[in-house]
């Protein structure tokens, strides 16, 4: 996924120049010794990671290393897989997401998710966005719903393209527009964390650039976690990067450090394209 050649060389500089609100604030989500099993097979092995608000955290690593599995356990989407089992603790604002006090529906409303393949509902663009606020009762009147739809689409940078055809089916949009629609759908319920599972892997470079721009704008508001196979993308959009390998986190730190000065040999080999 080499997009724009001019991006590759100075990519790290941009990320490094970001003001880094160090460990001043408590982490939004914090995972400790998380293991995930599919039946007898262990997919994630004692992973501990903190995710901060106003940060983009990137998960990189070769296919099958458990990035997506870990991401899906952060909003308990793994619950839908009967054989999946999670141990260790994952906390959202200090509260264990597996505790009895945490409702899974409420958790997913607070921790939204965008998937690898754009998956708009086969309903109108308007209904795609309005569905979340409606089921959560976030709006009383039709006017409020309309306001939420417009705000979400504007934030997702899609408003100008679709404002005249909100009644059209969401599936009639192009791939990149569909993915931004899915992002708008996720932010319409005003989540605190947005998990993105390779959101650009099905998109062309132009659509990818738009999504990356959008991620950059959104990070001021949310904690964003993005799984990506593109090293350049991780370098461009994230402030922190975790390198996964064989179910373990090999290295986790500031993106600039990971890419310019990795501590581990495996990280260095991976980001320089030696394997993966």
């Amino acid at each position, binding site marked *: 996924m080499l997009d724009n050649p001019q991006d590759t060389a100075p990519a790290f500089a941009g990320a490094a120049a970001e003001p880094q609100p160090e460990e001043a604030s408590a982490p939004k989500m914090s995972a400790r010794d998380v293991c995930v099993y599919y039946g007898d097979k262990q997919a994630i092995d004692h992973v501990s990671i903190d995710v901060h608000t106003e940060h983009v955290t990137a998960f990189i690593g070769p296919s099958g290393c458990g990035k997506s599995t870990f991401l899906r356990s952060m909003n308990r989407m793994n619950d839908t897989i009967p054989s999946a089992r999670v141990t260790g603790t994952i906390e959202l604002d200090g509260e264990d997401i597996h505790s009895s006090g945490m409702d899974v529906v409420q958790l997913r409303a607070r921790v939204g998710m965008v998937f690898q393949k754009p998956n708009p509902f086969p309903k109108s663009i308007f209904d795609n966005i309005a569905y979340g606020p409606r*089921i959560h009762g976030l709006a009383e009147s039709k006017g409020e719903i309309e306001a939420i739809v417009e705000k979400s689409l504007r934030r997702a940078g899609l408003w100008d393209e679709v404002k005249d055809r909100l009644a059209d089916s969401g599936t009639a949009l192009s791939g990149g527009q569909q993915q931004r629609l899915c992002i708008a759908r996720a932010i319409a319920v005003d989540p605190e964390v947005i998990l993105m599972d390779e959101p650009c892997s099905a998109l062309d470079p132009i659509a990818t650039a738009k999504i990356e721009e959008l991620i950059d704008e959104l990070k001021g508001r949310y904690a964003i976690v993005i799984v990506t196979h593109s090293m350049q993308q991780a370098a461009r959009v994230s402030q922190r990067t975790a390198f996964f390998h064989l179910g373990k986190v090999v290295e986790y730190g500031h993106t600039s450090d990971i890419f310019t000065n990795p501590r581990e040999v495996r990280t260095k080999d991976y980001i320089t394209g030696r394997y993966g």
Partner: protein
Amino acid sequence: MSERSTPAKLAPTRTPAFEARLKKRYAAEMRFKYAGMSAVLVSVAVLLFLLVSMATDGIAGFQRAELRVPVDFSATSLSINPSLAENAQIRSLEGQGLPDIVAFAAQQALGEEAANELNSEAWRTVASAIAADPAVMSGKRDFWLPASEDLASALSGDGKAALQPLAQQLAANGKLDERFDPGFMLRSDATDPQLAGIWGALKGSILTMVVTLALAFPIGVLAALYLEEYAPKNRWTEIIEVSINNLAAVPSIIFGLLGLAVFLTLFPNFRSAPIIGGMTLALMTMPVIVISGRNAIKAVPPSIRDGALAIGASRIQVVFDHVLPLALPGILTGTIIGMARALGETAPLLLIGMRAFVSTPPGGFTDNATVLPMQIFLWSDEIDRGFVERTSAAIIVLLAFLLLMNGLAIYLRNRFEKRW
């Protein structure tokens, strides 16, 4: 260059053996194409034969032999109370001697011998006409009245040999004719083919189908949703799945025995009623709906479920807001297949008593009734010539009802169809 042209250097895809195989592959393709085309032709021919033979026989079933009888009301003193219901008016006219008036008019117009061959219920046609419009009682009017069963047979060339010359003579004078009989769609079963109609059986079928749909559709869809979306995948659900698949393959007469043993034991007063027939057929239709429903639900892409779950929809919201609407076209297709099978079913209904002779259309779900395929079965059993044509006409009504049901389902399916 010379090296390349030696035969040993030919690429494997350019050898004679390869080219021979290529020819064979094309020949196989052509053979397959012609085999497929002839299969389609055979099925179209069978369908055409069925439709043409049905239509030619069936059109006669919508007709009946009728005699032209001019009735002069000026000499009579019939009175009518328009506030009464139609049946009461007809009874009142019978009491005032209308049957005799009609018989007398027939004797005058057709002569003694032909008048004897007027259907004994012919006066009812006149009575209905009066009830519909009392103005017909002023002056003289021509009525086409049903002939007797024997005369009708004679007109179509069989039956009693003695009546055939009379039939031919009356027909030649324009006093006897095969006329379109709209009453066929309005009357019910009768022992006389001249007076038999299909409405009772049609209404029985409609009522039975309503009960079947009302029971089988919700139960089938809920079972399919539960098995696909909620049930844990273990040995028990596997056993249930196999049982449902087997249930769909159970011969229909077994369901009839079940209905007899269970439903008629529980509700002995509802023998022959659409409600029991519908319950029995629902047992038969439900597994078909469950199986097609599960397949339709399985075909809904998991990404849609993920998308809804990820914005915090509960499982029931995922099921009813997303999965069910997307699966509905497939479920409807399965439902219509099951309902079509139930509509054409005779065997299970034989056992719960829906083969009774019912001469009045059922008023509700608990009245005695029969259904279209049963009516066809009963009429086809009659030796009377007139019932052969009535049977064909009933088959046409059954097929038309089936087409209507299928058309409705296709319309609904297209309405709900959404692409993802």
